[in-house]
């Protein structure tokens, strides 16, 4: 549905985005991760048709999104910018009504009422936007972004600066959108958020460093590992597993971390060997390194 092909953008001599390619399908939440200045916002702006790529292209349902092709295609995309960008002296309803009319909706007033209802804003409809809390402003901005029911939604740091409750509301909303088969691109620094909701992750540092599901990225960086918690000091049993052919065994207190070649084949063998050598095995779980560690390792590998 949304495809970027060799997307590159220069600002003078500086390369902001270099040779970025991906394809997204409906029902997908694609998280763009990267340090400040990595090109995330520039990428979103190119996807939204706000700025032209220096080379490469963005296609939405097969049509190129560019400034020239823009008006119609921009109407199919919802772009939540980094700042809510509300007219602070106007009330919530009027903020939304202007956008409903800009998108040429058949019945703007009804569309606004529906959006206010869907986002739990009916009781705040007549409040001046400047007096809303940051979380409420973001909710209004999200309502505005989705007013015209776009199939592709671009979200630039949607939970930045929000309190945990507001951030959770936004995440739940994004998940609901995914469930309704919207295609969502999410730029964020919040790795916990990505961990919770992203179906695929792109790590960007001008170039695309990695692109995969969170699970696959973990496996790529750390491999598959098993964490075994014992009733004794684990160091004494590391040799047992090494002797059994496991090459990467790390002991830490009462825990052993074991790299697996094929998870299902090895788990019974590891447990059997440990029990045979007198260990009390309390728990065996698949080890899940934090996405933050994966992210930092990947960036390190890319020359961070």
């Amino acid at each position, binding site marked *: 549905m949304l495809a970027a092909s060799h997307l590159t953008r220069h600002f003078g001599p500086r390369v902001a985005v270099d040779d970025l390619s991906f394809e997204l399908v409906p029902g997908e939440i694609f998280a763009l991760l990267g340090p400040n200045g990595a090109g995330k916002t520039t990428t979103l702006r190119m996807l939204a048709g*706000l700025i032209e790529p220096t080379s490469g292209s963005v296609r939405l349902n097969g049509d190129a999104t560019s400034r020239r092709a823009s008006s119609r295609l*921009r109407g199919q995309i919802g772009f939540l910018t980094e700042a809510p960008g509300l007219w602070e002296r106007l009330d919530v309803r009027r903020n939304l009504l202007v956008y409903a009319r800009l998108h040429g909706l058949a019945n703007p007033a009804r569309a606004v009422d529906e959006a206010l209802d869907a986002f739990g804003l009916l009781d705040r409809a007549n409040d001046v936007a400047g007096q809303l809390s940051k979380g409420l402003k973001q909710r209004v901005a999200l309502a505005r972004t989705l007013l015209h029911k776009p199939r592709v939604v671009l979200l630039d740091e949607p939970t930045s600066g929000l309190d945990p409750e507001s951030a959770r509301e936004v995440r739940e909303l994004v998940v609901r959108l995914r469930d309704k088969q919207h295609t969502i691109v999410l730029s964020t620094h919040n790795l916990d958020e990505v961990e919770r909701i992203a179906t695929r992750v792109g790590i960007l540092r001008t170039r695309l460093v990695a692109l995969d599901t969170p699970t696959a990225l973990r496996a790529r960086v750390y491999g598959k590992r098993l964490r075994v918690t014992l009733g004794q000091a684990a160091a004494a049993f590391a040799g047992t597993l090494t002797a059994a052919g496991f090459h990467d065994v790390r002991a830490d207190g009462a825990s052993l971390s074991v790299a697996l070649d094929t998870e299902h084949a090895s788990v019974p063998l590891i447990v059997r060997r440990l029990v045979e050598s007198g260990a009390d095995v309390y728990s065996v779980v698949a080890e899940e390194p934090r996405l933050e560690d994966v992210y930092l390792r990947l960036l390190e590998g890319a020359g961070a």
Partner: protein
Amino acid sequence: MNRILALLDKDLADLRQNPALFVPAVLTGFVSILLPFVVAIIIPAAVGERLSDSSDFAIAVESYQNQPSMRGLDPEGAIQAWIFQRFLVLLILSPIAGAMSVAAYSVIGEKQMRTLEPLLATPLTTFELLAAKVLSALVPALFLTTGCFAVYGLGVLLFAQPGVARTLFAPSSLATMFLLGPLATLASLQMAVCVSSRVNDARSAQQIGALVILPMAGLLVVQLTGSFLLTPKTFASICLALVVVNAGLMRLGIRLFDREAILTRWK
């Protein structure tokens, strides 16, 4: 057109929430109205002399001899009519001055409020954006012009010689107020919006946009000195030139509006 109206409605609603923006325009309008009354009525009354006693205004009497609207006026009334008609140009300038701050802030304001990027992400075209921004400064300016003209006419009716007010409603005066004035205002505001989309400081836009007032002020001065009188032919030529200038400014504005630079370089 719907998108222009949507944005225009928004801008006018925004202006209604911030009426202080038009205080300078109202003050300038007040001074513009007061000034000819000071010259034509207050000073002569204060010093106890009639304008027609001075040979300085011979040109006024002379210029009116062939005008049908003048025929019923005595020399004092003719001079007053001449002064009040000349100062109409000043009455045009005041709304321009007021609306200039609105126009100058139009694009920069959206950028500074961080509302421009969401706007540009809609199907809104550059033409629609600029047209709405120009209109949102022009519409209040025209209301102000009409209001000033009404007060001006009422003042002349109440305080000037009988029959002088009638000359203000001659076709030439009305055309000055409601054709030349709006065209000049439109040109000035378009320039301010053009500049607003190129500089990232509203004050710069306002200063550069104000340059358009200079030819109008020059027109006032040469008319007052009597070295140039606005004949119907000259008037039509100026109006035509302003139509061309306005069309050119809109094209220029669209060309100059560099949304990429605005989005990526302005802070």
